[in-house]
C-alpha cells in the first residue's frame, strides 16, 4: 500500500493530462479514431482477442452443439427445395436475358464481446480482410439481419449493429408492395424495437407482418428478415406512417454470425454494364 495520502500536484497534473488527451481523441475525425483503434487491435489486443476467440468457439461447441445440428438439418431440408427453385430461377433469368446474379459469399465469424454499457451497439468479429471481409458487408444470423461491417483489420472486423444510432436499412413487406426505411427505435442496446419510417400514408401494414430488406442502396441483399411489425407508432397526417418493429435478431443472444460479402455492389455491375466515364 502506498503511504502517501491524497493526490500531489504531480498526480493532479497527470490526471488533467489524461483527461485532456481523452477529450482530444474524442474530437478527432472518425478516420483518425478508427486508425488508432485498429492499431491497438492489431498490436496490444492480439493475444487477448485470440484467447477470447478460442473461448467463444469452445463455449459455442459445448452450449450450442444440439442447436447447430438442428439448424443444419433444417438448412439441409430447405436446400433440397432450394435447388429446384435455383434452377427455375436461372431458366427464367435466361428467358429474360438477364445476367446470372452473383450471390453473396457467406463468411462465418465469432462475435467477441466487451463489458462496457454500450457493448450492444458494435461488435468485434473474428474474421477480417484476410478472410475476404469488406466494409459494408451485411452481418446476418439465422434469425435475421444483425448489422453491417464498418471497418476491417487483417484478422478482425468491426460491425455496427442495428441498435447503433447511425444504422439504416431499406425495408419492404413480404409481397414487395410497401417500402420504408428501418432505423433503431432509440434507447440504445437494451431495446429490441426498430422503427419503420416513411411508409406512404395510403398504405397500411398489419400487425404481425414481417419486414425484409428491400435491396435498395446496394448494401443489403434483398429478402433478409429484419423484424415483425408491432403497430403504428406515429404518422404525418396524409403523408407517411411510422411503425414499430420488433427486431428478428437480438444482439445479446448472438455468438456466431454470417458476414455476406457481395461481389456485385451496384446495379451497373450486377447487370454487366460499365461505369460511365
Amino acid at each position, binding site marked *: 500500500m502506498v503511504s502517501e495520502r491524497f493526490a500531489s500536484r504531480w*498526480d493532479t497534473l497527470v*490526471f488533467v493530462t489524461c483527461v485532456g488527451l481523452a477529450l482530444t*481523441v474524442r474530437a478527432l475525425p472518425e478516420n483518425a479514431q478508427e486508425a488508432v483503434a485498429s492499431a491497438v487491435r492489431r498490436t496490444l489486443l492480439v493475444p487477448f482477442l485470440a484467447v477470447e476467440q478460442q473461448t467463444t468457439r469452445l463455449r459455442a461447441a459445448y452450449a450450442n452443439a444440439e442447436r447447430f445440428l438442428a439448424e443444419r438439418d433444417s438448412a439441409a431440408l430447405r436446400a433440397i427445395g432450394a435447388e429446384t427453385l435455383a434452377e427455375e430461377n436461372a431458366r427464367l433469368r435466361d428467358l429474360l436475358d438477364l445476367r446470372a446474379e452473383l450471390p453473396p459469399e457467406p463468411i462465418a465469424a465469432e462475435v467477441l464481446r466487451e*463489458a462496457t454499457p454500450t457493448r450492444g451497439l458494435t461488435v468485434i468479429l473474428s474474421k477480417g480482410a484476410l478472410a475476404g471481409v469488406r466494409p459494408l458487408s451485411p452481418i446476418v444470423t439465422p434469425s435475421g439481419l444483425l448489422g453491417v461491417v464498418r471497418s476491417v483489420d487483417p484478422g478482425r472486423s468491426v460491425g455496427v449493429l442495428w441498435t447503433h444510432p447511425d444504422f439504416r436499412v431499406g425495408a419492404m413487406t413480404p409481397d414487395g408492395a410497401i417500402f420504408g426505411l428501418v432505423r433503431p427505435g*432509440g*434507447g440504445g442496446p*437494451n*431495446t429490441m424495437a426498430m422503427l419503420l419510417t416513411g411508409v406512404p400514408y395510403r398504405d397500411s401494414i398489419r400487425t404481425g407482418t414481417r419486414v425484409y430488406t428491400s435491396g435498395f442502396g446496394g448494401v443489403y441483399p434483398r429478402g433478409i428478415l429484419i423484424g415483425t411489425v408491432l403497430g403504428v407508432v406515429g404518422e404525418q397526417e396524409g403523408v407517411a406512417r411510422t411503425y414499430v418493429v420488433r427486431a428478428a435478431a437480438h444482439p445479446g443472444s448472438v455468438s456466431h454470425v454470417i458476414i455476406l460479402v457481395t461481389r456485385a455492389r451496384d446495379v451497373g455491375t450486377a447487370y454487366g454494364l460499365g461505369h460511365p466515364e
Partner: protein
Amino acid sequence: MSRRGAGVRRAGVLLLLALLHFGLRPWLGDGRAAPDFLLLALLVYAIGARPGAAAIAGFLVGLLSDALRPVAFGSAMLAYAVVGYLAAWGKAVFFAENPVVAAAFFFAGVVVRDLLVLVWGGGASGMGLLVQLGVWTPLQGLTTAIVGLAVLYVFQRWLQLRLAG
C-alpha cells in the same frame, strides 16, 4: 517480501484478471451482468498506486476498451482515467481494508464508469438509459464487487492487504 517480488506478484494478479476478462466472460452468456474483470484489475491496481499512476492505467484500459467498442471513441479513456484517479484518491481517504467498504468501492467503480461512458459518450437514451443504469449497471456492479472481494481475499498477501473478517 522484496519490493520487486511484490510488484511481480501484483502484476501477476492483474494479468490473471485481464485473461479472465477475455477467457471467462464468453462463458457468461450475454454478459451484461457479468463482472468486468478489466475494471476490477484497474481498481485493484489503484488500491496500491498513486492517483496519477492510476489515472494513466485507467487511460490505457480505456484505450483498449475504446478499441474494442468504437462507439464515441475516447469516452472510455476519459471514464476509466477518472475512475482510476478517483479510486486511488478515494482509497487514500477512506479505504479501510474493510470488506463492505471494499465491495462498495468496486460497485462504485462500475457505476461511475457506466455513468461517464453513457452520459458523455451517448449510445443510450430514454428508457434504454434508465434500464441500463437502473438494472444492468447495479447488477454488474454487484457481481464485480463479489468477484473483487474474492480476489482480495485470495490474493491479499500478494497485494499486501489485510482484509478484516
